[in-house]
């Protein structure tokens, strides 16, 4: 054959490098693949049945062998069979799929949380410990990792095929998905919802590391300020502590330990305080007024970026006592009242 060895070698390497099946790199992957193979089997069986019917009837009843067709009206028994059997199979698939769906979209309580902010054509990962990553995500092996995601502009969709997880990242609301990575390595991150010009450039790498490597990575890649510390800085600079300082006469509700509690609102409804509620309360406070307080909190819509909101939410999640809040409030008040030092006098 006239193919030169160089070309032949390239072809072999090229075909070997081609992927045919994604790696099973998370605990949910085998379950998803099991459902996939069941569905493949169903499709195969369905197609083969139809093919057999078509081929055998075509051969057995072709015009030469059977010149006169016998008219058959139909049979309700047959109609019933090929209504009920497909329906039964489809319902089995429905239940199996629903169970898998609820597993993937309901994170376990002990999951470690990482915030993802989708922005036109890049993924920003915000680790609570203060690590910030662009188009990359480092996760420990063997631990459930929950992603709380939001978009700054348009619809994106965070997809890790090798973990079989995908969730739309929409502006204005947190969406969550979780996974428990099993095998170390690097896997693709894709944005699968069309989001504009560089939609195909909005890709990244998930690096799954052994717990030891992950610890080492968190040490040497931290930004020095955890999200909660950043949140505290914003909490003070935005003047939130003026009302939310936990004292008896405070105009705003006490925020220490509010995360995870069930809150009574002025309109009588009870709501669980979670990340989404905290973010909504900051952006549109008048719809989330705690019972017994006046709706005087101004809106911060458009003044705090999504990252800032994430820092604030993270800060409030870890706020158990108001001690530091009151301290920062006293120092800032004392700074304000202290007389300026006269020019020329060294402090």
């Amino acid at each position, binding site marked *: 054959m006239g193919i030169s060895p160089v070309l032949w070698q390239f072809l072999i390497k090229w075909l070997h490098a081609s992927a045919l099946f994604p790696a099973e790199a998370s605990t949910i992957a085998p379950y998803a693949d099991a459902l996939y193979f069941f569905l493949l089997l169903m499709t195969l069986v369905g197609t083969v049945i139809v093919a057999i019917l078509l081929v055998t009837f075509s051969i057995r009843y072709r015009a030469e062998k059977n010149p006169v067709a016998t008219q058959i009206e139909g049979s309700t028994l047959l109609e019933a069979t090929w209504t009920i059997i497909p329906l039964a199979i489809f319902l089995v698939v429905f239940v199996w799929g629903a169970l898998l769906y609820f597993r993937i979209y*309901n994170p376990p309580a002990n999951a470690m949380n990482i915030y993802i902010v989708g922005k036109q054509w890049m993924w920003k990962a915000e680790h609570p410990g203060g690590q910030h990553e662009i188009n990359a995500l480092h996760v420990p092996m063997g631990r459930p990792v929950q992603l709380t995601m939001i978009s700054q502009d348009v619809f994106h969709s965070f997809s890790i095929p090798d973990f079989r997880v995908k969730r739309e990242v929409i502006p204005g609301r947190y969406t969550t998905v979780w996974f428990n990575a099993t095998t170390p390595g690097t896997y693709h991150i894709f944005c699968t919802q069309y989001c504009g010009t560089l939609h195909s450039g909005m890709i990244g790498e998930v690096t799954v590391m052994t717990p030891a490597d992950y610890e080492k990575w968190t040490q040497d890649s931290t930004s020095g300020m955890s999200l909660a510390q950043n949140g505290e800085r914003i909490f003070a600079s935005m003047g939130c502590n003026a009302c939310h300082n936990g004292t008896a006469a405070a105009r705003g509700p006490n925020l220490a330990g509010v995360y995870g509690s*069930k809150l009574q609102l002025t309109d009588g409804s009870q*709501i*669980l305080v*979670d990340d989404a509620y905290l973010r909504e309360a900051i952006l549109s406070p008048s719809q989330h007024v705690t019972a017994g307080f006046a709706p005087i909190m101004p809106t911060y819509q458009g003044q705090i970026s999504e990252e800032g909101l994430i820092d604030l939410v993270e800060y409030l999640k870890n706020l158990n006592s108001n001690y530091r809040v009151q301290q920062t409030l006293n120092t800032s008040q004392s700074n304000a009242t202290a007389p300026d030092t006269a020019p020329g006098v060294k402090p």
Partner: protein
Amino acid sequence: MTEHHPDPMNVTNPEHDEHHIVSPLQYTMVFGTLLVFTGVTVGAAYIDLGLFNPVIALGIACFKACIVILFFMHVKYSSRLVKMTVGAGFFTFLILVTMSLTDYMSRAWGRW
């Protein structure tokens, strides 16, 4: 109204509909009721009935719409086919509303 016995052979007009003419008197009565109920709906809006305000407002609006459809638009005297068409229209609208609400109403469930 003569009893209609649908006759399949006459496909073009199975119910032998003769063209019923609604008298102006009926129109004036319908006109009167519509005006009265406009007044009622405005009046009812001023009374604070809490949750029932929108219910009553919509109830009155539906009632007025039914009157207009039945008498002004002659659906009361037209063939079953037209009646079914009107039904199909509002039924599809209800599907859009109720099925979308299954999403919006159940978003808060399952949080705790």
